[in-house]
């Protein structure tokens, strides 16, 4: 990775394409879970990679490169959430055909239609619950449970003290429990 970053700093765009390929799944997933919408997630993830490229000279090698990328993407997603009108946003993806197409891409070929439907409903419920979280809890929950990062890494990515990360994680879990704990 160090070699690739060096090459990118010298202006080698092919080296950057390798980096995008390596991290695109993670960054896209983060954006999708934060924003709850495929189209916006794509835009945000692309923008994150473009920003990272343009600002590659500010990257501090003491930080993991993935953490740096996560930080850029999380901040972008948070900005987008803040700019959205909360009411316009909530039912955007839920009933449209767009959502159906998206979820049908997820279903595994072995599942029966009934099972698929059940898991689609569950998927929607989980995503809706995540989207209802205030953005400061949402980023911590997504980094922890969707990306599987340690509390220490999350603290680095979001530039927050460990104690704050813990508090937000606890509150986020409690808020989600109200939607999901009884299922």
């Amino acid at each position: 990775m160090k070699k690739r970053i060096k090459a990118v700093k010298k202006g080698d765009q092919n080296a950057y394409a390798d980096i995008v390929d390596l991290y695109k799944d993670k960054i896209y997933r983060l954006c999708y879970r934060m924003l709850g919408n495929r189209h916006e997630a794509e835009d945000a993830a692309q923008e994150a990679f473009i920003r990272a490229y343009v600002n590659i000279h500010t990257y501090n090698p003491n930080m993991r490169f993935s953490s740096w990328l996560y930080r850029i993407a999380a901040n972008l997603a948070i900005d987008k959430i803040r700019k959205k009108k909360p009411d316009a946003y909530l039912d955007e993806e839920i009933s449209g055909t767009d959502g159906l197409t998206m979820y049908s891409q997820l279903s595994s070929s072995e599942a029966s239609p009934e099972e698929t439907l059940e898991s689609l409903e569950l998927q929607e419920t989980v995503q809706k619950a995540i989207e209802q979280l205030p953005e400061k809890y949402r980023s911590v929950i997504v980094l922890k449970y969707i990306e599987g990062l340690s509390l220490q890494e999350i603290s680095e990515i979001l530039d927050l003290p460990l104690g704050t990360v813990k508090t937000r994680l606890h509150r986020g879990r409690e808020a989600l429990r109200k939607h999901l704990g009884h299922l």
Partner: protein
Amino acid sequence: MKCPHNIVNLMHDFLDGDIGPHDEKILREHLQQCSACADHFNGLEKTVAFIQHASHLTPPSDFTARVMAQLPKERKMIRVRR
């Protein structure tokens, strides 16, 4: 049943993998005796399992190509640097 005042915090410490043996014992013993707290804890564990098993989408296949097409031009970057 009188619940220890910090019992919910202990649940979260447990979920964070950050609980000492003494506190864990307090938590386990209390959950065995108190169905309200046991429900609360089950709800949290279930919630975590649901979130963790949320399906993972992948970006479209032309994602990298589209990022690359939007980058500032190579030559310009190098010129700025020199």
